[in-house]
């Protein structure tokens, strides 16, 4: 029965309708290509980037503030110009995107694991456990994610000595963003679990003595993966933005490992002196990345939702 349910589910996901709506919308195809290209070039930044912006040996302060190649004074070595330390902006963007994406993916993964687990437990256990968990989710939901992430970061900063904090800053960030975004996963999974647990095959599994954990893992989980993936895609955009925002505020990743948000923060100081490219290009990269992920998420949600024609 579960194999059948799973097959039925897969059939629904990869139904020709989904493919049809994918190929029908040029926006979606383009944003998928852009997303893949950006994720790919960021992941392989050390091989793709023209320079290693963090190799101090290759940096030359004389190259600082070189404008983009098409402006007067541009240098062919630095297509998008250089920053205040003579680092190639294109390379810093590629390396920065790498960190932004890493934090984004990890925090969504963390939020997903946490949310799915809580949702499964709440939905399957019901009763008081469910009530308590969902009440926490309610309270959690009234506080904006960014605020929670800031608080978590602030507390960790206060608890840990500075050097240690800098070393694990990226993991703190992942934890802070992840912990502030688990609720949508939990809600969705809880709802589906409550529906699934009363179905005959789950009852049957219980009768033949499978443990609740095993039942949930192998029987309930596959049925809720679709909506979970939609939420994950939509949350990825949020997570990348959250990371950028925190780094921009100066409480994210340390300046030694600049993400896109850090780069924008650094560039912001030079906005008034006319070196706009130091901040505008990382900003554009961030916007395009999030936009393409959001477009994909939006499309996925609509395509899987039969209510919207």
């Amino acid at each position, binding site marked *: 029965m579960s194999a059948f349910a799973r097959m039925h589910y897969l059939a629904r996901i990869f139904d020709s309708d989904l493919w049809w709506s994918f190929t029908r919308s040029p926006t979606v195809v383009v944003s998928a290509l852009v997303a893949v290209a950006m994720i790919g070039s960021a992941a392989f930044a050390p091989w793709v980037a023209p320079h290693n912006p963090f190799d101090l040996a290759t940096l030359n302060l004389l190259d600082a503030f070189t404008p983009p190649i098409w402006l007067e004074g541009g240098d062919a070595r630095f297509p998008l110009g250089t920053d205040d330390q003579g680092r190639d902006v294109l390379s810093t963007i590629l390396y920065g995107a790498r960190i932004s994406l890493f934090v984004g993916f990890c925090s969504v993964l963390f939020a997903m694991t946490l949310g799915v687990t809580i949702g499964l437990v709440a939905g399957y256990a019901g009763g008081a456990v469910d009530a308590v968990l969902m009440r926490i989710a309610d309270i959690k939901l009234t*506080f904006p994610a960014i605020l929670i992430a800031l608080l978590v970061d602030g*507390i960790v900063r206060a608890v840990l000595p500075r050097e240690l904090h800098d070393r694990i800053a990226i993991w703190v960030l992942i934890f802070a963003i992840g912990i502030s975004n688990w609720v949508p996963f939990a809600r969705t999974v809880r709802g589906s679990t409550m529906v699934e647990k009363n179905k005959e095959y789950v009852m049957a599994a219980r009768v033949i003595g499978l443990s609740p954990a095993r039942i949930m893992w192998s029987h309930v989980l596959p049925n809720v993966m679709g909506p979970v993936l939609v939420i994950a895609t939509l949350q990825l955009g949020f997570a990348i933005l959250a990371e950028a925002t925190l780094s921009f505020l100066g*409480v994210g990743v340390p300046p030694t490992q600049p993400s896109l948000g850090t780069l924008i923060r650094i560039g912001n100081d030079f906005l008034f002196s006319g070196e706009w490219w130091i901040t*505008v290009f990382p900003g554009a990269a961030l916007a395009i990345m999030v936009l393409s992920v959001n477009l994909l998420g939006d499309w996925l949600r609509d395509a899987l939702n039969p209510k919207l024609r």
Partner: protein
Amino acid sequence: MLAFIVSRLLQAIPVMLTVSLISFAMFAYVGDPVTIMLGQDYTEAQREALVRELGLDQPFFVQFVEFLQNVLRGDFGISYRLGRPVADLILERLPATLELALTAALLALLVGVPLGVYTGLYRDSWLSRVFLTVSLIGVSLPTFLIGILLILVFAVILGWLPSFGRGETVTIGWWSTGLLTASGLKALILPAVTLGLYQMTLIMRLVRSEMLEVLRTDYIKFARARGLPDRIVHFGHALKNTLVPVITITGLQLGAIIAFAIVTETVFQWPGMGLLFIQAVANADIPIMAAYLMLIALLFVVINLIVDLLYYAVDPRLRSGLVASSGR
């Protein structure tokens, strides 16, 4: 009606208590305030005196009750970094943040709702597509980037508007307002647009999808079948039915606006609570963080209460005895 308000307030008490417990726990156990406040050189006697003064030698529960009493009297302790009472610091900066947040919220509503109605009614017109595309870009651009771009265009390139600060302010009682001077109003434009833009796109998309949902209902079809003019059907029957979810989200978004004010205030160096808070986070200034947390919680409780009261005004089904089961 009164019973409804009272029950809502009673429900808020555990939330506020939980938040104050968290705040207090931060206050009491995170970091070592004594070391931070005394700096590098101090004698053991100085240290003990400060410990006594801060009440840190008392048991947890006693400290918590004392903390609550202090909070109720408006005493949130002393900032580690600035050495001044937190309550004073926050009160000084509250007006700036509230003026910014309310202007932004108003902007988001006044633009977002009409755009949402339009794109819902004319879902296939090219203008709707333009609005929707722009709104998606708006959702994908982080607030701080929008702020930077606005500064680049309107302050750096065009030189029309100031890029930071509040301009001249007028003080009425303890409230300092920037709404009464030309330079204050000018200074408010860019931050308010920055802060409101994201909420505006959100409200627009929400109103649109609610509108599409409501336009499909039988009672709208029936209103058309009765031959009512489109104006009445769209802006009376349909819009009123979209209001309940819009009120909810707008209420929640007001909270988000106040939180996101942190970012906007950083970009524009706006002297509000957000800027104070972010400096506190960066410097592990726990008393300010704790006080800010409680203030935000209080704001949320108030906003939620207002939202519930608005429901009550909009939806007659809630007025006739369904109140108890209206929990969201």
